[in-house]
Each structure stands twice: as structure tokens, then as C-alpha cells.
């Protein structure tokens, strides 16, 4: 059996210690071992963005990331972005503008846009489009997603 040396990192603000094989993929670790199922598996190839999480604050495709690479680093998933009660201003904007349809891509978009707004509180439309260009949505034509991000950036709460 492959060895299961513990992997230590910060997960959604708390220290985490989980056994993980060398080849374990971060997405599998999150979804299957830690039951954090808000991070979605859309392609396993880094093509859809549904599995986006923040690693040290940076949007990262968890399906292309070996779990071992987050040793000692900080991982934030959609569960860590969501407040204990209610919604973040960005999440509220997604709901109110109708930026979710099937919702499968939504956690990835929320994670990506949360990082964008943290670094660029008032992004231009071009910056928004560039930031989300790694996230696929087949339902909305992106129209209301962009609108939601603009709404949140425009004073949001």
C-alpha cells in the first residue's frame, strides 16, 4: 500500500491534517476525503473552472493540483468563502441578478470573482471578462454573471 503520510495545510482558516497519498489530487481530497462538495468536478482536465479554489488566495484549479503541493499553504473553498449565516455581498448579487441557472459552475465563479474583487475592488468590464475567462458557463451566456460581479463591485452590500 502507498504510504499515507499526513498532509498539513490551512483549510478555510483552520489547520487541517489529512492522510494523503503522493498522487492524491486536491479536488479528490476535498470532495471525497473531506466531503467539501461545494467544489465541483466538471472535467478533471482544467478546462471548465468548476473546481476552482483559492490557494494562498490565488484562484487555482484543484483538479490539476496535487494535494501535496498545498502542504503548509492555505486553501479556501466555496465553503470557506460563504459566511456562517446568509451570503457574502457577491453571493447576494449572484442570487439577485439571476447569475445562477443550473448552478454547477457557480461555486467556481464565486471563488474566482471573490479573488478578483479582493485585488481589484472596482474592476473594469474587461478585467472581469479576463478574470472569468477560465470558468465555463453553458447556461447564462455570462451576461448576468458579469452583471452580478459589477453589482457587487459597485458597492454591493
Amino acid at each position, binding site marked *: 500500500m502507498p504510504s499515507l503520510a499526513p498532509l498539513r495545510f490551512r483549510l478555510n482558516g483552520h489547520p487541517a491534517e489529512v492522510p494523503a497519498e503522493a498522487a492524491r489530487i486536491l479536488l479528490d481530497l476535498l*470532495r*471525497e476525503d473531506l*466531503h467539501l*462538495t*461545494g*467544489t*465541483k*468536478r*466538471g*472535467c*478533471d*482536465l482544467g*478546462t*471548465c473552472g*468548476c473546481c476552482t479554489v483559492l490557494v494562498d488566495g490565488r484562484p487555482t484549479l484543484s483538479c490539476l493540483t496535487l494535494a501535496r503541493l498545498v502542504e503548509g499553504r492555505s486553501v479556501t*473553498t*466555496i*465553503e470557506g468563502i*460563504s459566511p456562517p449565516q446568509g*451570503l457574502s455581498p457577491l*453571493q447576494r448579487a*449572484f*442570487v*439577485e441578478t*439571476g447569475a*445562477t*441557472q*443550473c*448552478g*454547477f*459552475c*457557480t*461555486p467556481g465563479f*464565486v471563488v474566482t470573482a471573490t479573488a478578483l474583487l479582493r485585488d481589484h475592488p472596482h474592476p473594469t468590464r474587461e478585467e472581469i*471578462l*479576463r478574470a*472569468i*475567462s477560465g470558468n*465555463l*458557463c*453553458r*447556461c*447564462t*451566456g*455570462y*451576461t*448576468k*454573471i*458579469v452583471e452580478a460581479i459589477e453589482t457587487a463591485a459597485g458597492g454591493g452590500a
Partner: protein
Amino acid sequence: MAEPTTSEYRLIGQRVPYVEGPLKVTGRAEYTDDIQRPGTLVGRLLRSPWPHARLRAVDVSAARALPGVFAVLTGERYPTTFGVLPITHDETAIAVDKARYIGDIIAAVAATDERTAERALALIRFDAEPLPEYADPRGGTDRVPEPIHSRGLNGSNIQKEVVQHFGDVDAAFARAAHSVRVRGNFAGVTHAFTEPLVTIAESTPDGRLTVWSATQVPHYLHRSLSEVLGIPMHRIRVIKPEVGGGFGGKSDPLPHEIACAALALETGRPVKLLVDREDVFYTNHGRHPTQNEVRIATDADGQILAYDIEALIDGGAWSSFGTVTTYYNGVLSMGPYRVPNFRYRGRRVYTTKPPSGAMRAHGGTNIRYSIEVALDQLAERAHLDPFDLRERNALPPNSTTVNQFRITSTSFRKCLAAARAKSGWDRKFRQLPYGRGVGLGCGFYISGSNSPIHFTPVMPQSTVHLKVDMDGGIAAHSMQADIGQGSNTLLALIVAEVLGVDIERVHVQRVDSDVSPVDLGSYSSRVTFMMGNAARSAAEKIRAELLTAAAELTGRPVDEMQVGHERYFSRVDPEVGVTFLEALHRAMARSGALVASGSFNTSPLGGTFKGARAGTAPAYSFAAYVAELEVDVETGVYQVETVWAAFDCGRALNRLAVEGQIEGSVHMGLGQVMGEAMNYRGTRLMNPSLLEYKIPMPQQMPKVEILLVGDDDPEGPFGAKEAGEGPLIATLPAVGNALYDAVGVRFTDLPITPDKVLKGIDQRRQEGRPWKGA
């Protein structure tokens, strides 16, 4: 009860956020793959490397012997055929005698983990005899050495042939002042929903089988599981968790769903079967690759005299919805216009490629592209503005088409007027600088198929159950399948509107065949119309009980009571009234929780000739779109900047959702125009990934100006019609015709990639032709 006037609606017509939105933005919405049953085994499928092969023998002994393997299944265990249409059952859960495309399922394994399952698959040995492969439907129209299915017409690979002739087409062409012929060639496209296909099945010692699946038609899955596995429906429970998009790709009962259930039966353990993205592409069931030829004749004034249409449709390995597709390529070509003479020959031919099936605006998309491009040419020839030509030919309300479709409401003329005015058409068409263009495309689509796919037993197309208990919460049950289009929200909205309560009182329950009454699911744009009417009917029954209770409490006659916001009051003396909860508790004193069932069924429509029911619908949506675009004439790259989308969905019940459907439809339509294609080398799919099969990026998305101009439909709930599929169709020809306006090149084949645009521009330059007009 008289229909309330517009101003009396409290929620209908507003922008109502999706009820499950807060769960989706926090990652808390539960999709099938998020469900983890204790002791779950991993299911995996072995897929055929051969496009066409006879499976002579198979040795699974090594795979079975591998520690950690619980079951290895091959086709002969469950050989009963199935398929979404009862008349064309030709699929099996696992291939029985032959593999029919690269990707066909030939064995299934359940093991403790993914790695063991993969190792087991690698240990399965087939003795397979390769058979002729058929990549092009043209090679399958006559007798072939080895038909893909025994049911092919006269030893050919033709799955379905439809021939229809109304009026006298030849005579019409003989007296025509103008006629055009357009030959179109359309690559296949696929749904590319973000949630991959996935199923969980669990067989329990009480003799029951529970199946959770990413499906948009849970009822047909329920039936197919029962038929193939030989288990009565009441012992099977089908649950539909949240579904991450469907667009038709989750509407067939799919082989992996049945294989997963078979593995669960075999092992007595829960089995999860996740179809990876590559295999989702092989499963396909997307829009059919199609070759067509359209001829249209008009008189000197541009009045349409006749259509003459041929379509050759590449079906892939299975029938799927193909019989419907074959009809639709003909019958959905006519509206929104009056066509007095019509001839159609459509053939759908099996090939040894991944099956095609139903995809958003099924059967209408490709043919409408050809028709609208042909009309653009005719307008030019007849020296008519494209709008004027269409205006002249618009089907009037309350009319009957030549093939006996009943048209009730149509606001098509309003669509034309709105798109023309808002787009600034009259100052742009043929007047923009070289490289810029505007184009018009129009469409119509069924608002629900009038005929349910399964005819027996006779039962309503949709049923909704409501239960209101003392807490004042309203539980709504139905097998209508929300796949992101907002049908749960619509159900809550209608119930809240009828009862006068806040929408958060209505809790739409997850689809679960044990408790949800049958609704046939999300296909043919039927849900708003049919479930909406069923929901309204159920809510009206509850409302009657509440109004009676309110009358009792106030001592006023019941016909004096009316619905307010969370209260019921006297219309004579509005101060006299009771709250919703007071009325509820009074009503409950008699019978306990209030329960009601509402249902909707269609009445017979259409003619009596063979195939007359195909395309009949209780209502139709209509559309007129203008696209404006800019072509980089040095590279052929083009950007659609604005789409003015004038749409008639009757009354828009939830404006937010209607906008979302139109924006998403424009995006998906744009994908098929600009570059999406299932690319094959022979029978091998060359681009089975979201990297190589490219849907439009956010940067490619135009501004969509939505113009909702529909009048109330007489039979739709609160006057509504569909808005889920019709909005796609007009997008494609609007772009194609705008490209002609921009650079003077006609594009009859899809997709129109930059290299084709550049080639067309170069050719026109070499011919030295002026770029505007013919």
C-alpha cells in the same frame, strides 16, 4: 373566475430570483455526485475501441478474480432493448452482440475503488470481429453489407424516412416569380453541460431499488429501468437531485444509468457511476449532423408559394429521439410563415458514430438556418427588405398551417416591428461600412409536445401536489425537472400568486418518484405551459378552501372574499378580512392539512395522416432577431456585438428567468455558428474535451437587447408560452445573414469559422464583385 387584470398580479411578470439560488452560490446545492452513500462501490464502464464489431466471446474471469471487484457485467445479463421512443427501442444497457461506435459500452465493473475498477476493465478480453464502419450517412441510404441495426429500412442504414406533400409544390414552382435553392451542411454539436453524467443506484433488502441520477426526464428513466431490469415500477424509486444543465443531453434514458442500477442489483451495494468528461462527449445525443437542401418559391411580391425540402440526418449508432428529429426537420421549417404548398423528404441514417438526439431547439435549428438564409436571398432577388418579406408572409393568429398545426396566439408581427425599430435596421441594412453588417433571423418553436412520448396509460402530462400544514408552509411536489431553467421557481411563483402568499412559504420538493406525482419532465419546452397549468389548478383548489374559511370567519358570503397579500378580505368592505394563517387554521379544523392535486393534459390536435401529430403543440413561441457584427476582413475573425432579441413567449411569468433563457440561448446559438463542431476523422471523434470543443468565451458574448412583446396565450398559464428553446433558433440565421451584409459572402454551412470567412472574402475579391448585394 374572471382573469385578473395585469395590475392585479403581485408576482407574475416580476423579476423573481431563483428559489434555490442561495444554495447554489454557497456550494450547498446537492448534485448527484455530492451524495455519498455508506459502502458505495465505484462503477466503471469499458467502452468499445471499435466503430463496428461483432462481439464473439468475452473472458471476464481475470477481472472477476481481482480482489476488490464485486461485479463484472456484460451485455447478455440484461439484453432487453430500450430507448426514449417506444417505437424505436434499439439500445441495450451494455452491448449484446455488436459494438456500434467508438465509445459504445461493452462491459461494466463495480469495485471498491477507482483504481481497482480500472485494473479490472483492463483484464477483460474480447474476441471481436471488426465490421464495416459507416461514417457518412450518404453511404447508408442503400443496401449495405452489414447494416448497423437489423431494423434499417430494406437492408440499408436508414432508421427513419418521412415523406410529406401538402398542396402542389411543382405547380407552385412553375408559376413562381422568384425561387432559390440553398444547400446546407451542418456539423454535429453537443450540449456541453457543466455537470458530467452521473448515477448512483442502491438495491436494498426490502426489495427496492433507488436510483439518483443527473436526468432531466426522471419519469422515462423510471420506465426504462423497470423495462430493462424486469422490476415493477413501484419497486423502483428515482430521485433527481440538482442537475447541472441538460439542454436535451440528459433527456434520453441513458445506458450508463441502467448499467449502474444493474451493478447495484448484482452487488447489493450502492454503486456510483460517474461518466468522465471524455465519455460524456462519446455519449453525446447532441444535435444531428445534417445535410439539407431547401427550395423556396415566391410570387413577384415575395409571397411564399412553396417549400421543397430534403434532409439527410446523421443519426449515429442509436435511434434516440431520431424519428421525431426526422419529422421536425420538415414540419418545424414552416412557421412563423404561411406556406401553402409544402414537400419534404427526410431520412435519418444510422452511422457508427456517437448517437445524436435531442438538443435545445431540437429539430428546428438547422432547417431554420437554411430557410432564413434562403429568405434573405429571396428578399434580395425580389428587391424587398428582409423585414417586409417576412411581414408579408407572417402566419396570422388563430390560423391553421397547411399541415394542420393549430396556431392560436402569435405576436410574430410585433416581434418584427420591435426588432426592426430597436435595432435601427432601416438606417443600417446594406448601409454600414464594409466589414460591418446586420442580419435578420426568425423562428418559432413548440411550447410543449402535444403528444406525450408514452401513450399508455392515458394520464395527464403534468400533475402537481400541494400540502399546506398548520405551520403555513406549502410543500409542492411534481416530477417536473428543474435543470437550471427555473421551473422550481416558476412552480413556487404560481402557487404564491394564486394563494396571495409570500413566495418563501412555498417549498418545492426534490423530485422523488415515491412522492412526486408524474410530470413528463424537461423536454420539448413543455414545463412552463403544462406544469404551470397544473400548479395553477392545484393552487386554485387550496384557494377555494381558504376563501371558504375566510367567509366563515368574517360572516361574509364566499363570493365576496378576495385574495390580498397574505390575507383574504371582503371586496365590499376591504377592512373586513382574515390573515392567511387564520384562514388556514379554520380550514384545517375540518380536514387537517390542506392537500390538493392539479393536473394538465393536452387535447387532441393535428390531422389524421401518418405523422400528423409530430410538431403539434398547444402553443408556439415566435422570434425575430437582428444581429449586428464586425468582421476583421484581414483575419476572418468576427465579433457579434449586439443581438436584438424580440421574442413572443406570451406573458413572461418570471422576467429574470426568461431573460436568462434568451441570453443563454443566444450564447449557445452563437457557439454553433462560430465554431462548435463534433469533429470526426472517419468515425473517430477528434475533440472529446472542453478544451478542443470550444464554447464561446465571455469576451465573445454580444450585448443582448431583450424585447418581450408577447400577447397572452389563451391556454398558457396566465398567458405564458415557452422561452427555453425557441430563443436559440433565430440567433444562427441572424448572424449568418449579418455576415452577408458585412462582407457579401453567403454562408450556408455551419459552423462559420474565421478561415471560411477569410476564404469567402478572398474569393469575392478575386471575382472583383462589389461587396454589397448580389
